[in-house]
């Protein structure tokens, strides 16, 4: 169950740091609290019921990823309240926290523990994770010897085996080569359909239509439309064309 009430999130307007001369001349101005800011989210309300999959669509910079960071808790809202009940598994950036000098095995353990498991639990799942990744003997090699596709496969395999209760996905449905794409896509859809609460950000309207029962359309940090996913997608497509 996810509820968010009146979410606002601002970022400081990115100005380049002033040069030294300018800094000295205008010091009082720069030291004052900088009120210029960019509002990435402006009063978003949403509820995702247990077992439901909510699709989030919108153009680049609409606030989709910011929304996911707030739901995950790696960012704090400027205003508003969020309540997320359950074990959160982020699929925001596959392989965040992987280290190139550690072997595949060591990276599995580190990633699994970072995602909220004890080391023993990760070890119990180790065989399944390795099998799913189809990396074979490469699993003993340092990650820097992997191709980027192999790294993604490893990251995906760890994430999918963490038994999530709440899944936050940012545009990673299918990774690797064609056959692995099919397999990973299928595994993820199975997971979502099995009753995991999901928030799924994507630019693939087909995927959203297929997986999500409900969707919201974000535009400039505000919800433009929400409801049954087919309808929201139609509104969005009409608006774009």
């Amino acid at each position, binding site marked *: 169950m996810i509820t968010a009430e009146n979410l606002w999130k601002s970022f400081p307007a990115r100005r380049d740091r002033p040069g030294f001369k300018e800094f000295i001349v205008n010091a009082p101005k720069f030291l004052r609290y900088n009120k210029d800011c960019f509002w990435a989210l402006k009063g978003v309300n949403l509820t995702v019921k247990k077992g439901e999959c909510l699709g989030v669509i919108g153009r680049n910079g609409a606030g989709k990823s910011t929304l996911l960071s707030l739901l995950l808790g790696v*960012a704090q809202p400027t205003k508003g309240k969020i309540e997320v009940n359950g074990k959160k598994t*982020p699929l925001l950036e596959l392989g965040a*926290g992987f280290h190139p000098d550690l072997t595949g095995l060591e990276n599995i353990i580190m990633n699994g523990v970072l995602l909220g498991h004890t080391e023993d639990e990760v070890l119990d799942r180790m065989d399944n994770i390795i099998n799913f990744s189809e990396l074979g003997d490469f699993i003993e090699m340092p990650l820097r010897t992997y191709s980027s596709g192999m790294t993604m496969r490893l990251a995906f395999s760890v994430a999918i085996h963490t038994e999530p209760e709440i899944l936050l996905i940012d545009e990673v449905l299918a990774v690797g080569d064609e056959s692995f794409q099919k397999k990973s896509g299928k595994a993820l859809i199975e997971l979502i359909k099995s009753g995991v609460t999901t928030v799924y950000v994507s630019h693939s309207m087909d995927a959203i239509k297929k997986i999500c029962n409900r969707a919201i359309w974000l535009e400039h940090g505000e919800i433009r439309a929400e409801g049954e996913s087919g309808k929201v997608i139609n509104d969005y497509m009409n608006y774009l064309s």
Partner: protein
Amino acid sequence: MNKKTRQQIDLLKILVKKEITLKYKRTYLGFLWSLLNPLLTALVLFIAFRIFMRFEMENYTLFLLAAIFPWSWFSASVTMSTNTLTGNIALIKKVLFPKHFLILATIIGQLVNLIFALPILLVFVYYYGKAPALNWLYGIPLLIVVQFIVTYGVALVISMVNAFFRDMEYIINVSVGMLFWMTPIIYLLEAVPEKYRVLLVINPVTYLIQSWRDIFLNNTINWHNISISLVTAVVVLLAGTFIFSRLNRRLDEVL
């Protein structure tokens, strides 16, 4: 122990392990570098001050090493912690975990160097015709705890402030260098002219270094110095925790 605690302990364990094993993973001398570093520094200082400048002091090597190993733990932890948050942006922005673990892991990783340096110190203690006493057994752990608290407090502040104000890294580099010379590490506190000594007496690191030396050179535990260090450490830790948690709320906006 419940599952959450176990997971947190495992996480810290893994981060520390990563800190220790990765540092020298692709070097030939590997972990030896951790010991070579302070030893070679001590050697250079020994040549410069004992041989060239003819400092007259008995046990000068032991005197130097007893201060340089603990100092290295402090200075390396502080210097490295400037980049613990800014160097792990992907992790911090995409995975939810306690960020201060990164800082704890840095400090514990460096502590391992100090612990491995203790046998070397012991060799020099015997070489100079001294012997360790029983009070080492509680004196050393006690000093480690005190130094850990103060290092952690300092590291919390500078790692977080550096994310908002990147000049911090350079300020810290210069400050740590200055602090080295303003602490009685290579010279005796008593050798400093009385009118300047106040500069060293107001420096909290002085008490810590003096306490380490009291143990290794005289087998004494100087409760006066240790209590001053402990009080400073706790104050620094409280201030550090406060600043860290305040700025933590806006950290994602500047990384």
